[in-house]
C-alpha cells in the first residue's frame, strides 16, 4: 500500500521535528526540505482527488466482479461496503475488493478468457490513472 495522505502529512511533521545530529544539517537537511516540499505538493493533489479516486475505483472493481459473478461463481454480496468517505474506511473496502479482483484475474487467465482479460487490463489502466500523481516540472539544479 502506498502511504496514505495522513501518513505523508504526519511524516512531513515527524521528519522535520527532529533536527538530527550536526552531520545531518547543511546539504542533507536542504535535501530533506526539498523532499518535504515535493511531498506537500503531491499531497495537495491527493487531498483534492484521493477520496474520489478511491470511491470510483471501488465502484469499478465491484462492477467487474459483479459482471463475472455468475461465470466465475463469485459471492459478490459478501464483499464489504462502506458509506464512510474517509481514506481509511475506503482503503479497508478497497483491500477486500482488490483481493477478490486478483483472484478473479487469475481464474480468467486460467480459462484463457481473453475478452475478460482485456477488460481487466483496461480496468488496471483506469485504476492507475485515477491514482496518478503529477510531478511538478522542477528545473534541474
Amino acid at each position: 500500500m502506498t502511504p496514505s495522505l495522513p501518513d505523508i502529512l504526519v511524516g512531513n511533521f515527524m521528519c522535520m521535528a527532529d533536527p538530527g545530529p550536526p552531520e545531518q544539517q547543511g546539504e542533507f537537511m536542504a535535501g530533506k526540505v526539498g523532499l518535504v516540499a515535493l511531498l506537500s505538493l503531491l499531497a495537495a493533489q491527493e487531498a483534492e482527488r484521493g477520496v474520489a479516486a478511491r470511491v470510483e475505483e471501488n465502484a469499478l472493481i465491484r462492477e467487474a466482479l459483479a459482471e463475472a459473478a455468475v461465470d466465475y461463481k463469485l459471492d459478490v454480496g459478501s464483499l464489504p461496503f462502506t458509506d464512510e468517505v474517509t481514506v481509511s474506511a475506503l482503503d479497508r473496502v478497497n483491500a477486500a475488493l482488490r483481493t477478490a479482483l486478483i483472484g478473479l484475474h487469475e481464474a480468467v487467465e486460467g480459462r484463457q478468457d481473453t475478452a475478460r482479460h482485456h477488460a481487466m487490463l483496461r480496468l488496471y489502466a483506469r485504476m492507475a490513472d485515477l491514482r496518478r500523481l503529477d510531478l511538478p516540472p522542477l528545473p534541474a539544479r
Partner: protein
Amino acid sequence: MSLAERLEAYLTRTWGQPVTVADLSRIPGGASRETYRFVANADGEARPLILRRDPPGSLIETDRSLEYLALESFCDRVPAPRPVAMDAEGAELERPFFIMERVEGGAVASPFTVMPYGAHARAIGESFFDILGGIASADPAGLPLAKAAELPAPEDCWRIAVDHWAAVIEADEQHPQPIVRAAIRALRRKPPPPPSAVRVVHGDYRGGNFLHAPDGAILAVLDWEMVHLGDPLEDLAWAIDPLWNPFDATTVSAMIPRDEALALWSKASGLSVDEDALTWWSLFAAVKGQAIWTSAAKEYRDGGFKEPILAVSGWYTARRHDEILAAALMRLEGLQ
C-alpha cells in the same frame, strides 16, 4: 560517541596510526545506505572519502560485500569510486559499512527534473550507454566480484530475478496490488530467451546514480548495492524505464533517442539486443521497481514516517510504476 569519533576509532585501529576525521557531512539521497563525505587526516595526509553505512531501515536489503567487490572489479574499467575498507559487522560504527574514495568535482542530477542534463544531455547519454555496455562486456569470471556473486545458468536468469522480486512484494506488501501481480504472472507465462552470456548487472544503473562534471563528462557510476550476475538486458531495461524520464517522450533516460542508446550499448558490450527479450526485461524492470517501492512504503511506516525519501519512493514512484505496468500489459495484448 559521535559518528566522527566512531570513524576515527575505526580508522585509527585499522590503519595502525592516529587518524582524525574532519568535515563529516551526510549527503542527500541514498535511500538504501546512509552516505557521508568526510576527510581522514593521517600522517600529514588529508584523504577525501565517502562512508556508506547501512541505515536502521532500508529501501532494499542488499549485501554490502557485493557492492564493495563490484567497485573493486570496475574502478579501473569504468568511472567508479575506488573502495578503501569494509566491515560487514559494523565494528565501531555499529552497522555494516564500507568506505570508498571520494570523486571530486561532480554533481548528481535528479532524473525527476526537467532536462536534468541541460545542454550536455547528448554527451552524457553517449557516455552513459557506452559505460553500461562496458560493464556488460566484462567476463565476470576474472573479476573480484566472482568471489562472492552466484553465477546463474543463462536459462535461469529470468526466473531467479522474478522469484526474488516477487518474494519481496509477497513479504512487504501491505495492500493488495493487482496490477503488479498481473505483470508477474505475465512474466512467468512467457519467459525471455536466455542471454548469450551471463554478465555483471549493476542493478540500479539509471539517471540519478552517477556523478557528472560541469563539462558533461561522467566521473563516477554510483550505487552498486544491487549488483549481481545475470542477463545484461536487465540493466539496459532498467536504465531506459520511463520512470526515469518523466518529461521527455523523445529520449530515454532524458538523454538520447532509444535506438541510439541501444546501438551504443550493443557496440560497447559486443552483445546484440533481442527486442522481444528487452520487452520482457522492460516489464520486469517495472515489477522490480514496484517491489522496491513496496518495501519503501513498509519501511516508511515501520520507521515512524521519518525518512521523506522513503515516502517519495513508496508513493509517487509506486503510483507511476503502476501506470507504466498497466500500459505495458496493454501493449503486450495489442490494446490501446
